[in-house]
């Protein structure tokens, strides 16, 4: 069993270091080169002074845009931390027994994962987006209370540290225990991450002695205060700071949603705060609110879910707001049914407070009461369905632009539909009783929390990237990353829905072996999600320094469809002021290479193929040698790890009648790779599919590899067979690429010299 604290700590440290490296490298490269490239002392001092000024500025800022960025950065860090927990959870689930983490560690992981994601990731990011863009969207100069705004944000970092203090202390204890005896550092050895589940159900949360539970409760309380403060600020801003001409009838949907979300938060979070304090009192001062003989554990469940269900809407309403805002821009049509969307949002807000007991169908609540909760819970699906209907209608017949934000919007709608429909099933009491303890639930709500929520966060980060930085993100990478996220989320959580439907219980590190393959596929899917998140981050960081500079005041061409909304008008004004840009729409031209389409003769089509082969034989030999050299790396590795039998080389020499010597065989192999195969390749390459020579090279290598894999097969089984095949193919691809690229390289040198 690995030491979870140290592993997670180091993984996070590596992640942080790579982010910093990427950032500074991109920044350094973006600078015009200075004299010699050496950093002088003055330069270093200047740099340090600048860093100090920057730090002071960020720590004391009350500007809504800067606070917005702080919120987003904080939420991203929390997401990476909670995501690391998720990856560790999924890694444990690669095998049926609890053999990578102990069950207790697993419990701690899903507890902290849930809390970090729900409390410290989602709402902070949405508050950040709101902080930055809501004032721009409603034409306000800043938030209503700029200083309160700053305080609200700065309560969050200590809250997160308190909530996750167990991990920090555990790492500290590990380090200290190298130098000090155990009894001097008792404190560090007695704290550990909370493992009672994110719902903190009594009586377990009352009786477990782990003092980290108290710190967690305090941290959650602090974050609740931060949320309440922020919510008040949003409400006041929307009500009092709107510019002339922004009325309730034309307020944009995102601002509407932030207003409604904030109102829900205003009612829900103080209640969570009191419940947390009661739990703290129970734990430390002997009160009995939730003790079995006192108020009873079910009281905790009522209080918790009276906050907990509205919290669900707090989390996803901003995402639907972003969807209603962004989607129309990419289909060139106005949002369909503005009024319906506003009313459905308001309806959701009210109803969200009337359904909490659907989380308690399996506890001893009066059945008549349960039935009424079931009815409202099913009814609450209607407003959400209205939204989906409106989005689909907006898209219908639209002029769709297939850019990253649109891809994410479409993916978000898809996950929202599946996540929502599976949720309606859970509102039906008999179904919930069957499934509430299974992976079905995990699949259901992750399709929302790893679906529409992050997808729309990312969509907005792309959509507004020009405003945030004045540059473009890497658009190809963005599209790719978006697709990856959608595929990963679907694969991972659809599988969880299915295995949950088959009855696999959730919150267990150990599971029956027949589920292993499904769990492994879900884990691979989750790694794909993780990789796509890293790609997003990379894109954001590097494009900040090196993205193409935005050349137009209307980068998305929104004027054409009459959707040039206020935040872009603000952007336009600023660009005109700062860079003297023309407010009109300059023709955007996208730089791209235009490769020749016709197949090429070897030397620009001069002479017959055979002549060319002859003329280029020496270059081909060099290329072949390099290709063979690369290939030997692959083949050699395969031999070293034991998936390829070197004796099979002896067969080559036997074949040509030189006896069974592996050495001679290998020499023949080398000669063939250097002379015969390149010549064959050059003769046939025009007949092989592929536009470019390296493409045909790959095709050629694939063909040869197929033959090779049959000829050299020595009865490998299982993993060894997989390894054999991969190494054979990869080694041949290396050969094909090496051959084609070297050949072209030599030719390019020759033409360079000739020109």
């Amino acid at each position: 069993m690995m030491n979870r604290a140290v592993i997670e700590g180091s993984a996070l440290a590596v992640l942080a270091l790579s982010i910093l490296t990427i950032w500074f490298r991109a920044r350094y490269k973006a600078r015009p080169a200075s004299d010699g490239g050496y950093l002088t002392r003055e330069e270093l001092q200047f740099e340090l002074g600048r860093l100090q000024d920057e730090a002071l500025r960020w720590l004391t800022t009350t500007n809504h845009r800067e606070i917005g960025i702080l919120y987003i950065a904080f939420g991203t860090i929390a997401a990476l931390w909670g995501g690391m927990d998720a990856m560790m959870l999924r890694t444990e689930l690669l095998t049926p027994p609890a053999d990578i983490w102990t069950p207790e560690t697993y419990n701690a992981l899903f507890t902290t994962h849930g809390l970090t994601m729900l409390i410290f990731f989602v709402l902070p990011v949405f508050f950040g987006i709101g902080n930055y863009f809501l004032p721009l969207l409603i034409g306000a100069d800043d938030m209503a209370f700029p200083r309160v705004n700053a305080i609200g944000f700065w309560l969050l970092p200590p809250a997160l540290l308190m909530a996750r203090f167990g991990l920090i202390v555990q790492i500290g204890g590990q380090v200290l225990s190298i130098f000090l005896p155990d009894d001097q550092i008792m404190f560090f050895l007695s704290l550990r991450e909370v493992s009672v589940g994110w719902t903190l159900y009594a009586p377990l949360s009352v009786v477990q002695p782990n003092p980290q539970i108290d710190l967690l409760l305090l941290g959650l309380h602090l974050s609740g205060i931060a949320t309440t403060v922020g919510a008040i600020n949003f409400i006041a801003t929307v009500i009092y700071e709107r510019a002339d001409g922004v009325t309730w009838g034309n307020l944009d949907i995102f601002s509407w949603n932030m207003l409604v979300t904030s109102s829900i938060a205003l009612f829900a979070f103080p209640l969570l705060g009191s419940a947390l304090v009661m739990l703290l009192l129970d734990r430390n001062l002997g009160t009995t609110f939730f003790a079995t003989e006192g108020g009873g554990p079910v009281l905790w469940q009522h209080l918790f879910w009276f906050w907990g269900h509205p919290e669900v809407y707090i989390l996803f309403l901003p995402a639907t707001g972003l969807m209603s805002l962004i989607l129309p821009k990419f289909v060139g049509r106005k949002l369909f049914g503005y009024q319906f969307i506003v009313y459905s949002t308001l309806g959701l807000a009210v109803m969200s407070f009337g359904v909490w007991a659907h989380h308690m169908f399996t506890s001893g609540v009066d059945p008549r009461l349960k039935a009424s909760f079931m009815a409202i819970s099913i009814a609450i699906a209607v407003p959400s369905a209205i939204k989906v209907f409106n989005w689909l209608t907006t898209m219908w017949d639209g002029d769709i632009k297939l850019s990253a934000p649109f891809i994410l919007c479409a993916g978000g709608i898809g996950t929202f539909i599946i996540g929502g429909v599976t949720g309606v099933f859970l509102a039906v009491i008999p179904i919930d009783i069957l499934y509430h303890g299974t992976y079905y639930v995990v699949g259901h709500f992750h399709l929302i929390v790893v679906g529409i929520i992050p997808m729309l966060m990312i969509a907005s980060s792309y959509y507004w990237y020009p405003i945030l930085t004045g540059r473009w993100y890497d658009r190809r990478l963005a599209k790719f990353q978006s697709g990856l996220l959608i595929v990963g989320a679907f694969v991972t959580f659809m599988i969880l829905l299915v295995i949950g439907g088959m009855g696999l219980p959730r919150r267990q590190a150990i599971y029956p072996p027949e589920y292993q393959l499904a769990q492994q596929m879900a884990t691979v899917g989750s790694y794909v999600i993780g990789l796509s998140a890293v790609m997003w981050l990379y894109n954001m960081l590097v494009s900040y320094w090196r993205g193409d500079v935005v050349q137009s005041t209307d980068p998305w061409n929104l004027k054409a469809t009459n959707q040039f909304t206020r935040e872009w008008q603000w952007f336009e004004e600023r660009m005109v002021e700062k860079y003297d840009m023309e407010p009109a729409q300059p023709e955007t031209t996208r730089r791209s290479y235009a490769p020749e389409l016709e197949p090429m003769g070897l030397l620009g089509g001069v002479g017959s193929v055979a002549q060319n082969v002859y003329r280029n034989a020496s270059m081909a030999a060099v290329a072949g040698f390099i290709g063979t050299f690369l290939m030997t790396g692959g083949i050699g590795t395969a031999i070293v790890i034991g998936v390829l039998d070197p004796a099979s080389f002896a067969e080559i020499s036997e074949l040509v009648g030189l006896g069974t010597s592996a050495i001679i065989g290998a020499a023949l192999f080398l000669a063939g790779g250097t002379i015969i195969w390149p010549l064959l390749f050059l003769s046939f390459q025009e007949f092989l599919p592929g536009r470019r020579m390296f493409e045909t090279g790959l095709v050629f290598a694939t063909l040869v590899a197929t033959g090779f894999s049959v000829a050299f097969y020595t009865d490998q089984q299982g993993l060894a067979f997989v390894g054999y095949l991969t190494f054979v193919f990869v080694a041949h691809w290396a050969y094909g690429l090496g051959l084609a690229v070297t050949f072209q390289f030599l030719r390019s040198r020759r033409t360079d010299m000739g020109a």
Partner: protein
Amino acid sequence: MSDESILFTYIAPFVGVLVVAVGIGAAVPGGYAIIQEDITTCDSPTVAVEGPEETTERFNESRPRTLPTLYYENLSEAEQTAFDEALADPIGEARVTGDFPNGDTIRNGSIIVYEGEEHYATVVAENPCFVAPELQFPLGVFAIIFGVIGILSPPIYRKLVELEERANVE
């Protein structure tokens, strides 16, 4: 769009990501299997020990007659150490590293009498060692490297196209 190779701009990196993801799934546990002997104590079960009050509360009046009773003095050294550690532990758990002769009894729950007081003890986790095929680690690492090349294929592709373009200039 049409001037770009879909294969090398989207499909190859996509396959690359899949390969990397599978590679991580293979290499991380595979590597762990190789070093776990050195860095961990697997195959040493965790026991949970409850205090005397909790024990009484747990069984108030309905103590099953089959519940075996053990005496602290008769436990093996490793068992005794684990018992002491569990009593001192905030969650009441500790690992038995070493001889575990009473394992089968404690696994199903038993009472341990210590200084005249009764403690309910049971194994809560077996902590088995992780087993993986030997090839899993090298193949996983290889898959990660190979996948990364796949992910990087769009820029590589552009470089190669540039090279060919230059080669074809006369």
